[in-house]
Each structure stands twice: as structure tokens, then as C-alpha cells.
């Protein structure tokens, strides 16, 4: 709309006049404008109209174009009930979107406004909708257009939270990658579809995981390792799968929603866990044909389910709804297999097919030896032969285990030994082998996180990568006995996000310790009451004091009037900042194969969990240094935020590297903890040696500096305490923190328990 003349403020006596003047020159726009104007002037006062005209002028001034203007007029006319405020807001938002994302995006946003009006009943929600769009137009201008076109689908859930969540998830997922972003906002991405469908009662694995874990543990008394199984690329529906000790459940079960999905997840988890608890060693593949493999699995399924139902008869109710095979229809291989599954599961099911009947007879004969897994192989092979001779079609590639809750049974087979069978069999195992490989790769990965060996002391970093400068601090010059002002620079290094699951798993493995710490927490949380004897007032007589007073009265002495007893409970009011040393030396490996940092991470996770449970305010800060003007600090958990998956991810993402300039880190810790309002403030330092840095020759300089930093903190009412790993740093540490405020952990492996114990000791003081 290049013809829109720039407005001169001198001419513009009022926005209305200017706008009308402009419209007179625009043939295409004149008619719709006049119509709108006529209608609006019936509703509004002159002032309102003027404000509206100003809004239209603003739109015209950002070159929104005729489509956009007409769209705006349409929405202005259509909503007769609302006042002028939402319209002015819409114009304002459209102006900004137009500036950021272009005229078309702005026009389409205005056109989708009626959809939003329908979806959200109230004005504040519309305001949030606009501000979400504004924000998006700044961050990802190119997606506004495609998104506005699909607004009705996106808004189908009907809540503004869902919409904001949708945008946030998209931006996070893409992390700046434009292709992924576009994919997401055009609803092509798998996650989008899930997010949108989730709102309609879809249930996914993540949602059920905790429940399933507890449920299955209660059932069979062993804690399962549950993982999610991403959807397959093919059209074949996913089934649960067992790989080694892991139970992998599909991310979503298509076609199951709400309670039905929950029941299905329960059924699947119970079945898979029964395999692990009641099943046996894996079968050798040998020369079995695909059909035989499938049948051995099917019999094994029936065997472990029968065993499980002997213990827990109610499991039948859990599994029965999925056995829906009917004794009719074409006798294809999958149909016969489903019927065989049902006949072995359900004693009341009648099926006169010869094959199915034989299966039931064979299984029935073996019922005295049900505990013996060999029967699965025996019966499976016999039936496999039979079915093979019936010449029914069977395609191993497209075969899917039925009923839906059962797992694909690949976990039953031992494929370490190269199967001599044909290619079809091999193919069946490729996926399972890959999974197992992947999972075993997973374990050492955590330890390999330390950056490459070049990330040592002398690596130079480009200035722009060094992070935001947070503050500068003085440093003590030991030789000259002065404090050098602004000597060190602290930079915030954005945390690398790891996988919070790894932290949770490490915690799960350390469940004994975790239980002990949880008990300490409970003991502390109760807030033990302290009894005060011999008080002037109280809720109870202090009998001993009363008797003393009585004796005094009788012997003619002055009695002590303090004859009451009261109680008070002590509350802790303690804020803690945990300073974690991530210098290069923390990448050293221990005898167990884990690195020092791994142990530190676990120790911090255990303690953080306890502090969170106690609702004590705390912060987690990791530090390393690369010379005086680059002391790197990473906020793992800020004081204000709560400890959750986010902080765990950042904790997991910590990597070893660089040196230890402790004094500066302590000074900064003081600045971080100072605003906390708690009565006691504690800086807990976790380090594995004495301070050092690349630009300091004499470590004594840094020790002395750190000591001054500690004294400084003390003067401000902040306690500091050093936890030293390995005996190397103990002399330095006791010099820095004082002997009473230093704890030496000889065996690094003991750190998790010692650290928590220390905290509880300090917290009680």
C-alpha cells in the first residue's frame, strides 16, 4: 500500500478527518470503509470513533494493505456486543505483528480473531491470545502466517493455557531451527499432533509412568525399569517390548483414550513385568522358523499369565477385555493365533477349530509342569509345525502380536548367538538388537560427558562465547597485602541441559541412601518441641518445681514462683547455597568407573531432594575458572525457582573443565545468598582439591584470597563450610574455612551420604 501518504501532524487535526481524507483517495477501500463507519457511528461516541480511526491509521501506516484493513473493519463490525477496547487492542497487536512478520501475517491474524473469540469466552483470555501472537511474531515471524491459517485446529482444546503451551513447546522443540519450527507450526510434526490430540483426553506414557511403576511394584514386588518407545515410522502399530531388564511401552496407544488408555497401560505393564519376574532365561533361536518363534512366544505368554493369575486372580479382569477373538471368520494365521491366545487365556471360550483345540489340549496336558519354561518351546514348536502344514499365509514382517497389551516377545530370545535361521528371522531381531545396543550405550555415556581433553586449562575461548558478565570482584594480593579492586570477572555460563531421567535413575539406584535421608528429613520436619521447665507461665504445672516451692513454703523460705512448664517448637530458618566445583580434576575416574563429578552430582541430587522436601530455600551453583577475567558460574537452581525436572536437567548437564578460583566464587556466592531473608545463611562448598588457576603460579595466593572471602562472608553473617573430596586438599581447605568448618571425605563414593548428613547436622545447630 505504497499510496498511503505519510501523515503530517499539522494537518491531522483529528484522526477521523485524516482517515476520511485518506479514504477519499482510495477507490477500492472507500465503499467498505463507508459501510463500516456508518455502522460504527451508530454505536459509538465521537471520541470512540476518533480512537478507532487512529487505530486504523496506525495499521495503514505499517502498510498492512487493503486485505488487512478490510479484515479489521470486518472484525470491528462483527462483534456488536464488545466495547471499543478489544478492537483497539487488536489493532495494536496487528500493527506489531505487521511490523515483525509482514502484512499477510497481520491480516491473517485479524481474520482468525473471530475463531479466537469463539474459543475464549472472556476478554482477558483474548488479551493473552494476542500477546502470545505478538511474542511469537518477535521470535519466529515466519510461523505466524501458517499458524493463523490453522487457528481453528490449534484452538480446538479451547483453553488459552493449551495455546500458550503449544507455542512454548514449539519454540523449545525447534530451538532456533527454522525448518523444525515451520514443521511444528504447520502441524506436520509428530509432537504437534500429539499435543493437539492430548487435549482431547489422549494419554501418553509420560503421564502414566509413575502410576505404572508403583502399580507393577506392588503387584510383583520388584521395581520395573520403564522406558518409552517412540512411535514407529511404519503403519504397523507399536507394541510393548522388553529389552534386557527394560520394559519399553509405546508413547501412545493409538485409539485408546482416557480411562481406556490407563487400563491398557496397566495391562501391558503387568504383562511385561510378569515376563521378567515369572519368565525364564531367554530361549535359544536355533533353527526355529518365524512361525514357530511366534508360537513359542504365544505359549510363553499364556504360561506366565496363568502363573500370574494363580497368584493374583484379579489380573484376569485386567487382561480379559482385550481378548476379543471370535471362533468364526477366515482362518488366517493372525486370526488363528488370536483365537489360540484367547482359548489359552479364557477357559470359557469355545472354539472348535482343530488347531486351536489342539493348542488347548497340549497346554492343558502340561499344566502340572507350568513352572517349566521348556513347555513353551515344546508346544510352540509342535503347533508351529501344524500351522505351517496348514499352508496359511503368514508374513513375519507385518505380523503384530495380539491382543494389544502383549509385548512383541523379542525380549524372550537370545540373539547373541548368530541365528542360523533364514533372513526373515534375522529381520525380526534387528530392531530388538538395536534397542539393546542403544541401551547399553546409554550407561557409559553419562561418564563420557567430560569435554574432550583439550578442554583443559589452556584453551582459549572466543570472547562472545564466554557468557554474560555478572560482576567483578576484588582479589587479595598476598605479597603486597592489598586488595586489588575489580580484579576478577564472573561470567554466567548458560547451563547445558542434560537428561533429568539420568538423575532420577541414579537416585533410584541409590535408594537405600535416599531412604535414609528421607527419614532424616522426616525427623527434622516434625519440628521437635522443646520443653521448658520452671517457667513463670505455661500450660502445665512443673511438678518438681511445685514440690520445691511447697518444701520452701513449709520450711519458711521464699518459694520460687516459676512452677509452670511450657513447650516451644524450634523452627529452622536456613538458606543454603551449594557451590559445586566442576574443575578439570572432577573428571578423574574412581575405581567404580564413575567420575568424581558423577558422584558430586548424585550427592547434590540427594541433598537437593531432601532440601526440597523440607522446603528450605536453597540454590545450586557450579563454578570453574579460566583465568581471572573468566570465572564461570552456572546456575543449576536459582533460589527463586523450585527444584524439578529443569534443575535436574541442568545438574545432569554439568561437565568438568577448567580450574578452581575459589575466592571469587565464594564472593559471588555471598552476593547471591545475601538477599535471602532467612535467619541463617550457609554457603556449602563442594571441592576436590586446593584452589588453582592458570594465571596464578603460587596456589598459596588463591588459598589466602579464599580465606579472606570466607572471613568476609562471616562478617556479613553468612556461614561457609567446605566439603573436601580426597585428602589432597584438606590442608588448604582447613586453612580457608577453618578446621571446624571443613569436612574431609576420604572415599569419594561416601560423599552422597556424608553430604546429606552434614547438612542435617548444620541445619539442626
Amino acid at each position, binding site marked *: 500500500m505504497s499510496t498511503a501518504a505519510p501523515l503530517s501532524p499539522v494537518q491531522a487535526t483529528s484522526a477521523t478527518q485524516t482517515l476520511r481524507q485518506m479514504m477519499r483517495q482510495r477507490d477500492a477501500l472507500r465503499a467498505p470503509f463507508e459501510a463500516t463507519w456508518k455502522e460504527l457511528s451508530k454505536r459509538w461516541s465521537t471520541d470512540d470513533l476518533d480512537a478507532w480511526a487512529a487505530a486504523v491509521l496506525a495499521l495503514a501506516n505499517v502498510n498492512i494493505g487493503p486485505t488487512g484493513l478490510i479484515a479489521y473493519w470486518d472484525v470491528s463490525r462483527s462483534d456488536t456486543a464488545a466495547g471499543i477496547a478489544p478492537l483497539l487492542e487488536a489493532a495494536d497487536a496487528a500493527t506489531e505483528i505487521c511490523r515483525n512478520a509482514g502484512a499477510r501475517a497481520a491480516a491473517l491474524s485479524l481474520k482468525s480473531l473471530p475463531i479466537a473469540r469463539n474459543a475464549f469466552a472472556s476478554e482477558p483470555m483474548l488479551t493473552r491470545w494476542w500477546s502470545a501472537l505478538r511474542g511469537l511474531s518477535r521470535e519466529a515471524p515466519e510461523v505466524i502466517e501458517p499458524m493463523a491459517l490453522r487457528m481453528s485446529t490449534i484452538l480446538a482444546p479451547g483453553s488459552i493455557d493449551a495455546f500458550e503451551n503449544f507455542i512454548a513447546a514449539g519454540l523449545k522443540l525447534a530451538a532456533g531451527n527454522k525448518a523444525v519450527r515451520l514443521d511444528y507450526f504447520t502441524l506436520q510434526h509428530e509432537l504437534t499432533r500429539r499435543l493437539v490430540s492430548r487435549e482431547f483426553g489422549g494419554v501418553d506414557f509420560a503421564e502414566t509412568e*509413575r502410576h505404572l511403576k508403583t502399580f507393577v511394584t506392588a503387584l510383583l514386588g520388584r521395581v520395573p525399569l520403564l522406558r518409552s518407545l517412540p512411535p514407529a515410522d511404519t503403519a504397523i502399530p507399536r507394541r510393548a517390548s522388553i529389552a534386557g531388564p527394560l520394559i519399553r511401552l509405546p508413547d501412545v496407544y493409538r485409539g485408546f483414550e482416557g480411562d481406556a488408555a490407563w487400563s491398557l497401560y496397566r495391562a501391558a505393564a503387568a504383562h511385561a513385568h510378569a515376563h521378567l519376574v515369572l519368565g525364564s532365561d531367554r530361549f535359544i533361536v536355533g533353527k526355529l522358523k518365524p512361525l514357530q518363534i511366534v508360537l513359542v512366544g504365544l505359549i510363553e505368554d499364556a504360561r506366565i499369565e496363568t502363573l500370574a493369575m494363580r497368584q493374583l486372580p484379579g489380573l484376569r479382569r485386567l487382561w480379559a477385555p482385550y481378548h476379543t477373538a471370535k471362533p468364526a471368520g477366515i482362518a488366517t494365521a493372525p486370526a488363528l493365533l488370536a483365537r489360540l491366545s484367547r482359548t489359552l487365556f479364557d477357559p470359557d471360550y469355545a472354539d472348535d477349530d482343530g488347531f486351536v483345540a489342539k493348542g488347548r489340549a497340549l497346554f492343558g496336558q502340561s499344566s502340572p509342569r507350568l513352572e517349566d519354561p521348556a513347555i513353551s518351546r515344546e508346544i510352540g514348536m509342535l503347533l508351529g509345525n501344524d500351522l505351517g502344514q496348514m499352508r496359511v499365509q503368514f508374513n513375519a514382517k507385518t505380523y503384530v502380536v495380539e491382543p494389544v497389551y502383549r509385548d512383541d516377545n523379542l525380549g524372550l530370545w537370545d540373539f547373541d548367538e548368530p541365528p542360523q535361521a533364514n533372513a526373515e528371522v534375522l529381520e525380526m531381531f534387528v530392531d530388538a538388537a538395536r534397542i539393546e545396543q542403544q541401551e547399553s550405550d546409554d550407561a557409559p555415556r553419562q561418564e563420557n560427558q567430560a569435554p574432550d581433553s583439550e578442554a583443559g586449562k589452556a584453551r582459549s575461548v572466543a570472547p562472545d562465547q564466554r557468557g554474560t558478565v555478572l560482576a567483578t570482584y576484588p582479589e587479595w594480593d598476598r605479597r603486597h597485602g592489598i586488595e586489588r579492586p575489580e580484579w576478577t570477572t564472573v561470567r554466567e555460563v548458560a547451563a547445558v541441559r542434560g537428561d533429568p531421567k539420568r538423575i532420577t535413575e541414579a537416585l533410584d539406584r541409590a535408594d537405600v541412601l535416599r531412604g535414609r535421608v528421607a527419614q532424616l528429613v522426616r525427623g527434622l520436619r516434625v519440628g521437635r518441641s522443646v520443653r521448658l521447665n520452671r517457667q513463670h507461665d505455661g500450660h502445665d504445672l512443673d511438678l518438681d518445681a511445685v514440690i520445691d516451692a511447697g518444701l520452701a513454703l513449709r520450711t519458711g523460705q521464699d518459694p520460687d514462683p516459676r512452677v509452670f512448664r511450657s513447650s516451644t517448637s524450634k523452627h529452622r530458618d536456613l538458606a543454603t547455597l551449594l557451590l559445586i566445583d566442576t574443575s578439570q580434576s572432577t573428571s578423574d575416574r574412581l575405581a567404580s568407573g564413575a567420575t568424581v563429578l558423577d558422584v558430586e552430582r548424585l550427592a547434590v541430587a540427594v541433598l537437593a531432594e531432601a532440601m526440597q522436601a523440607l522446603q528450605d530455600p536453597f540454590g545450586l551453583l557450579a563454578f570453574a575458572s579460566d583465568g581471572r577475567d573468566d570465572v564461570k558460574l552456572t546456575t543449576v537452581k536459582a533460589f527463586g525457582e523450585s527444584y524439578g525436572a529443569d534443575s535436574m536437567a541442568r545438574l545432569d548437564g554439568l561437565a568438568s573443565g577448567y580450574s578452581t578460583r575459589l575466592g571469587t566464587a565464594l564472593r559471588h556466592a555471598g552476593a547471591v545468598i545475601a538477599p535471602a531473608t532467612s535467619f541463617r545463611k550457609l554457603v556449602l562448598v563442594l571441592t576436590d582439591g586446593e584452589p588453582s588457576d592458570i594465571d596464578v603460579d603460587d596456589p598459596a595466593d588463591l588459598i589466602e584470597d579464599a580465606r579472606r572471602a570466607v572471613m568476609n562472608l562471616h562478617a556479613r553473617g553468612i556461614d561457609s563450610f567446605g566439603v573436601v573430596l580426597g585428602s589432597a586438599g584438606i590442608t588448604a581447605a582447613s586453612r580457608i574455612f577453618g578446621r571446624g568448618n571443613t569436612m574431609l571425605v576420604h572415599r569419594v563414593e561416601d560423599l552422597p551420604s556424608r553430604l546429606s548428613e552434614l547438612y542435617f547436622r548444620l541445619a539442626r545447630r
Partner: protein
Amino acid sequence: MSLDAYRITSEPYYQPHGEEIEIFRAAYDERLPVMLKGPTGCGKTRFVEHMAWRLGRPLITVAAHEDMTAADLAGRYLLEPEGTVWHDGPLTQAVRQGAICYLDEIVEARQDTTVVIHPLTDARRVLPLEKHNEIVPAHADFQLTISYNPGYQSAVKDLKESTKQRFLAIDFSYPPPQIESAIVTRESGADAALADILVAIGQRSRNLQGHGLDEGASTRMLIHAGRLVRGGLPLATAVQSSIVLPITDNPDVRAALRAAIDACMP
């Protein structure tokens, strides 16, 4: 003062599932103090009652609590019109007259309180009453038994080493399924099939110990559920109100436990 009120006249039902009766009897013969360890509701108190009945001794039970002082156990001077009068505490009564003194949940008591039992539990077998200026030698029949739930164990509430090491210990745990089922049948009047189901439910909840629950359902809880069913309540409702609701407040754990319990129902 006579201890007749503390005598147990009819046999309290107790179903042994180990050698606990023999151990206790041997300990009593030597007048050695005994510590009963085990989770709540597994039969510790009932066992002591049963043993007191078997041995024909009166039983004085003291439930320890956080505010219990040494004077609450040993005794104190009370004021009466004619002056101060010494009153023996329950422990002193048992020591003087030869009863079995049972201190229930001893960890609950303050640690300074538990120290008064020390001279009674070694070779001295005396109870010094410092306020009364008296040393009470233990009656030949006196014996001390304490109970202790290791589940509560924490740095805040734990027995001192010097206390722990004075006692013989008998470990109590939930009885094996068949025995527990018999106990539930006997105590609640439920039939054997129902008792089996209740025991299976109990095991499900015990599987969650440390994984969402601090302690599993006790035998006592199962008996309560059995009684409710016998009184006409449907099994599911009875289990819900006697086991699921009391045992946890966490809605996730409740839902999972309920699903697992459902798997035990016929």
C-alpha cells in the same frame, strides 16, 4: 499395692512363627532384658501379653512418648494435705513386685529417660531412685522388655548404642502367608478364602515399602478389614477404608495400590 489388676487371666491368642516363645522363655529364665523389633501391627504387644500369661507374671505396659520424663517411669513426690508423699512410677512398681515391665515404642521417649533403665538391665539389677534416696533391688521375677520399630529409625530417633547393647533381640516381621492367613481367620472370624485374599492384598502393599509407602499394611489392618467384611461390608469398601485410605495420603500411590489390590480380588 497389689498387681492383681495387671495379671492376665485368659490366654491371649498368639500364633508363633519362629522360635520366639522359646527364646523369650530362655531369656526370662535368666532374667535377661529383651527387645522386640519389628514393624507396627505385626504382633509384638500381643506376644508380650501371651508370654506374661504363659509365665504367670503380671504385665505392666508403659507406652513411651516424647514428653516422658524419668520421673514418669520411676516415680515422684506428690503433695498431699499432710505433706509430700512418694509415689512409685510404673517401672518402680514392676521392679519391687516382680512384674514384666513392657516399654512400648521406646524410641519415642527422650534419650535421657531411657537411661534410667540402664542399671536394671545389667548385672546390677537395681533401680536407683535418687529423689527418694533409695536403691530398689529388682524382685527375682522382674524382667524388662522393650519394643522398637526400626522403621522409625533416624538420627533424631534412634536408640543409643549403650541402650541397644543391653538387650537380647527378637526380630518380628510379618508372618509367612499361611500363618498370617490363619491369624486373620482366627482374629477376624473371616473364612479361609477371604483371609487368603486379605493376606495377598497385604503383600501387595508390603511390596511398595520404600517405593511410595513407609510401611506395608500390618496384620492388624488385615484383621480389621476381615472384621468389616464379616460385619457385612463389601470386600472392596472394607479394604478401601481399612487399608488404602489409612496407609497413604498420596493420591498416585493410592491409585496404584487400588489397582494392585484389584488384581488380588477373585
